[in-house]
């Protein structure tokens, strides 16, 4: 052996990572579930995107003579009290619900992450003020606030988005703040500071890139919750107004004809399955990142 510093031969993977992968294979199969979740979302997204092509009927067209027909080859989801094709209405309803849900989550994410990172990084008074403000908004119930907004401004999809977005951001503030606080103490952040980075640079180029993956996962899963919330608003008549199709509102119209089950149940299906799928994906991701895989710490 020479006196020169050892040129260490490249090691393939250190022992910890390999054992972890092995244990994951030994354990369950999370990937199957994630695939199912993704598949459900993709199917609905494809159907909704292709609505103009797939739906053979105009969602607004009433054909009273054909009212309350059960699902058939012609009307896949049957018809409602006004003879409208439920399948078309479900697909077209998604064209507003899905983007609206994404919009709400996007706004909540942007506002929440901005406030949270500032609060977590600057600490002190700024942190206290942001957290008190967040607590205030956190206490307000989603639905009641949406009702208040609707009562004040009138009910519409746009107002529904505003109402939801106004109270959607507090969880992001909390999570982002916790992440930033935790990351700020990491040694590599201190190393960046020692190297001479400016505080803004540290926040945006070192801390946030490491916090974003977890936050993005949270946001992606949240879309399911947003879809659910929109459907509730719609059910209460606070979302898109008739005759525009909206999943929750469609369930409400089906409430009076429950014996003709398809009117209420078919529009509830995308809500249920999509919320389910997003949660399933969230679980799979969390399991994959979990260091306690297979019951053994790696």
């Amino acid at each position: 052996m020479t006196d020169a510093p050892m040129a260490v031969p490249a090691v393939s993977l250190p022992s910890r990572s390999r054992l972890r992968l092995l244990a994951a294979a030994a354990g369950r199969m999370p990937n199957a579930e994630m695939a199912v979740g993704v598949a459900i979302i993709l199917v609905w997204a494809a159907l909704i995107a292709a609505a103009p092509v797939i739906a053979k009927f105009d969602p607004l067209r009433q054909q009273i003579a054909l009212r309350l027909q059960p699902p058939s080859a012609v009307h896949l989801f049957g018809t409602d009290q006004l003879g409208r094709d439920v399948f078309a209405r479900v697909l077209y309803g998604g064209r507003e619900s899905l983007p609206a849900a994404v919009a709400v989550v996007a706004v909540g994410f942007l506002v929440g992450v901005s406030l949270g990172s500032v609060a977590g990084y600057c600490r002190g008074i700024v942190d206290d003020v942001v957290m008190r403000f967040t607590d205030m908004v956190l206490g307000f119930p989603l639905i009641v606030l949406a009702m208040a907004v609707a009562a004040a401004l009138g009910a519409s999809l746009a107002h529904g988005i505003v109402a939801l977005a106004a109270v959607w951001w507090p969880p992001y503030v909390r999570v982002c703040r916790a992440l930033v606080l935790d990351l700020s103490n990491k040694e590599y952040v201190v190393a960046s500071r020692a190297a001479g980075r400016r505080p803004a640079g540290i926040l945006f180029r070192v801390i946030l890139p490491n916090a974003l993956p977890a936050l993005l996962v949270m946001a992606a899963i949240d879309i399911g919750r947003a879809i659910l919330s929109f459907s509730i608003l719609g059910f209460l008549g606070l979302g898109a107004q008739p005759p525009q199709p909206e999943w929750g509102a469609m369930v409400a119209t089906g409430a009076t004809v429950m014996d003709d089950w398809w009117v209420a149940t078919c529009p509830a299906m995308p809500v249920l399955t999509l919320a389910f799928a997003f949660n399933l994906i969230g679980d799979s991701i969390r399991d994959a990142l979990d260091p306690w895989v297979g019951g053994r710490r790696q």
Partner: protein
Amino acid sequence: MTQERGGEMLLDVRDLQVAAGTERQPVAVVRGVSLQVRAGEIFGLLGESGSGKSMTVLAINGLLPAGVRVTGGSVKFNGEELIGASRRRLSQLRGDRIGMVFQDSLTSLNPIMRIGPQVAEPLLLHGKANQRQARLLVGERLRAMGMPDAREAVRRYPHEFSGGMRQRATIATALITTPQLLIADEPTTALDVTVQAQILDICQRLNEELGVAILLISHDLGVLSEICTTIGVMYAGRIVQTGPTRALLEHPSHPYTRALVESMPRAAGTRGDRLHAIGGEPPSPDALPEGCKFHPRCAFAIARCVAHEPDLVVVGDTRSACWVAQAGGLPLSAGGDGVGDARPQPAAAAAQEVLLAAVELRRYFTVPGETLFARPRHVHAVDGVSLVIHRGETLGIVGESGCGKSTLARCLMRLIDVEAGSIEFMGRDITRLGGDELRRIRRHMQPIFQDPYASLNPRLRVSDIVAEPLTVNDFAAAEITARVQEALDLVGLGRGLASRFPHQLSGGQRQRVGIARAIVLRPALMVADEPISSLDLSIQAQIINLMRDLQQRFDLALVFISHDLRIVRQLCARIAVMFLGKVVESGPTEEVCTRPRHPYTRALLASVPELSFDRGRRTRGLLEGDPPSPLSPPSGCRFRTRCALARQRCAESEPPLAGDGTAHRWACHFPLDAEAPALAGEFAR
């Protein structure tokens, strides 16, 4: 006195095999381990990470985690086979005949349960006592362990205790039913050096008084050599050498053992020697080389070693698994033989200019008061520390947990602010500097951190991590590339690793990346905070050598913070010993370490486990109890509550840091005799 060879066979392990992973793709982590522990013996199992030592003892006790299982071999306890025994039978033996102590006492205790019931559990589980009797016995045992206020202590929760006290509680728990065998898995690794000495002393006393056999696992050869009768050395899932302690250490007949012995920084070693480092890294269980698993790192490897794995056979006084040793090809005693020769140290350089001067630094943290209107209290993390660093000099700062050394490091680097005092660096007062000016100064001082896993940005490639100080300081792109290449070469990382991410590297490699990042700006000062504590033993010497080489080559000043006096003694020209926020002794390393004047320094020196063949009751300079709380330090001299020599004056006034006119200074009213021998007996307990 402990016997050289114990009584009848207590634990007989033959060819134990343990595997992890799936049924289809098993990974052998223990590949045929055999060992015997006799009644009254202390058996030491030595190994680094990946050696399989923890899995071995977990398998013996039937506590393997999910996904890991025994695939072969036999474990006999008192003649009874444990492998395959019913769960019921194993539960009967565990806690009653076999006690176990783990490394981390905090996570080994139920955090929401009081200590008393937890210590009493083995008694109640095995029906040895009722509640009342158990309570009495617990109090008695804790008191015997040296826990103050045992009656009060039983009602408290685990997190309210210090590490040393908690470990005493877990040892008391393991021994409360007076078992025949105590298995201790790295029981002192997480503890301070002086506390470690206390715990080892307790273990030895218990072995003598109660006759309980101990199976002690450690990665620290010094710890094992002090109290074990027999040692087994594990590498890559097998025992490669085993035998009586003295024989094993004096005539190591396996290259791995030999290398470990040689790479231990010696008390008597000359400062400035390069440490004997073993090249390469320990193999991971799923990527084992052919033949003898040690051969890629072995200086004596021959053709046979590459092809076949050697068996454990008798060689001299011990048993060893090495073809070369079995053929008589190993030199008899440990000594320099080509594995990193010592280089003659250049004569001490003439006094260099002062690079950094810190005067009376103070840094407090606040704790809210106990009651509603009480004023907040202060933790004096750094309480009036002054020191001077010269260009190109190595300064070691030594102390145990809570002494403030890490806080001091951050203060010196202006990573946190000081409440009082001044720092002058390269001729400028940087105490209150901020903004761009401070950033310009930062180029000249760089940190190296302890945790190789947390000190690198997981989202950046190695080359980007090393380049960060350059990009942040607006270097030209071409210059950046050149410097990064150079830095990676200097630290011994191949070019191929530059595009990897940190999680793809081993601990030793990551630490090299951290060092590369630190030198890429060619700073005048490097501050290293425990840079090797998280690394394997065989890697530590490599990194130390690397740091020394770089320091000498670029004439860097190096502040080396550590709790490990052995390393500091080898590496640093000057040393400062800290206790509870203050420097209690400082001066040239050799002077301070051979003629310490402060009782704490002496206790530290005596507590450091070293290769010693005297397993009799060594005078260890044992200190009483735990370090005082940083919240309410004792009046006057802070060390007085642990000091055997404390007198009235020590409680009244704080001793200043003063000396005899030389560079050697100490803060003690009644310093130790300058002429006294290095390890005095006045602390014998």
